[in-house]
């Protein structure tokens, strides 16, 4: 009997997982397939771009600067032993463009904007605002979910590009201004090793994929919240945990495809 119970529990868990994925897919489908209405949708999108994108700027820029500076400092102490400190430029630029830019932006974004999205939608759900919208013949998927999704997908690549640019500037500050690497050598070696297709386009593809995954998880966790305070706190936590894990796992996969 105990064995059958265990099998049943496993089955229930699996069905729950698959149902969850299906519901998440349906939610996104419902939000995206709706006929776009530029006149009404644009203001909603701009409002969300402000909340999701502009308000994440400070944390992204400051982290980018410090991560670039730390990378340069650590790289310098190693490279100077070999007398190749001019290679600091490519080291900082390539690690930021290929990995750290998209990944750290996605992690910070999940913590800063993803958790906020989940809590906001979760609270709307708990206080039955979503049902009221539906009662007024307004589709909550179109009105609430779609603009937030698009705002996340548009913001994250922009944030990743800003993060990378600021990080390279941070590397320049430490390498050239502080440690005295030759300005010309730093930039020319950097430019020779960074490639448009291989590095910059892949950086954008990565951060677009992360944007879709993180925003989707955040919205779904909020939309499917258990409507009580504990449920909202659990949903917010699982947004951050799940999207961080998803980003790190996907990053390995994408790196293996792009550079493997």
């Amino acid at each position, binding site marked *: 009997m105990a064995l059958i119970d265990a099998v049943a529990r496993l089955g229930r868990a699996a069905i729950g997982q698959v149902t969850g994925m299906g519901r998440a897919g349906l939610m996104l489908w419902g939000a995206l397939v709706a006929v776009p209405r530029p006149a009404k949708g644009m*203001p909603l999108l*701009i*409002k969300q*771009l*402000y909340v999701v*994108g*502009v308000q994440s*700027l400070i944390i992204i820029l400051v982290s980018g600067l410090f991560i670039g500076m730390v990378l340069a400092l650590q790289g310098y102490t190693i490279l100077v032993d070999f007398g*190749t400190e001019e290679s600091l430029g490519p080291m900082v*630029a390539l690690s930021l*463009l290929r990995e750290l830019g998209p990944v750290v932006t996605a992690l910070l974004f999940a913590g800063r904007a993803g958790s906020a999205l989940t809590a906001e939608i979760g609270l709307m759900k708990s206080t039955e605002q979503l049902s009221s919208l539906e009662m007024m013949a307004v589709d909550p998927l179109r009105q609430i979910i779609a603009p937030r999704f698009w705002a996340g997908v548009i*913001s994250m*690549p*922009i*944030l990743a*590009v*800003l993060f*990378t*640019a*600021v990080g*390279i500037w941070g590397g320049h500050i430490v390498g050239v201004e502080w440690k005295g690497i030759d300005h010309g050598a730093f*930039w020319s070696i*950097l*430019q*020779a090793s*960074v*490639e*448009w297709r291989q*590095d*910059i386009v892949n950086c954008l593809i990565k951060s677009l994929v992360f944007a879709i995954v993180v925003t989707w998880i955040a919205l779904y966790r909020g939309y499917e919240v258990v409507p009580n305070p504990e449920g909202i706190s659990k949903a917010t936590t699982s947004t951050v945990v799940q999207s961080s894990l998803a980003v790190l796992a996907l990053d390995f996969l994408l790196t293996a495809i792009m550079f493997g």
Partner: protein
Amino acid sequence: MLSRKVEIWVGLFLLAGIAAFLVLVFKVANVEVQAGNSSYTLYARFTNVGGLKVRSPVKVGGVVVGRVSQIELDPERLVAVVTLNMDGRYRNFPESSSLSILTSGLLGEQFLGLTPGFVDDESVMLKDGDRIADTKSALVLEDLIGQFLYSMGKKD
């Protein structure tokens, strides 16, 4: 209704994103916008290209005059064929010029060194689509070590 402040911030956010993207493309990746068709193509055959890569520079006396645009294997002769995309400002290289694969520094990147040949009344200048006949392949460290060991062994 949206407040003016929100709209301005979102506009600035998008502009900052575009600016950062342009910085990455032009300052970091150094993508060059080719103005018109001011470049021409040359070919060269090498038995060994070593660590030469696409976009490696072609230098005359240390000045970059072009870049490698393609490296492939000639299926009949089984030698590497390197396509050079030369800057149109530098056209006067005689046909007797030679091309060698050099290394910048001891462990640095490899590049193509173009040595201009002699010019007399009969010499012809290289033009679009020509092939540079005189080429020197890359120095492969393992081969050098092999030769060295071999010559050491013969002395004994």
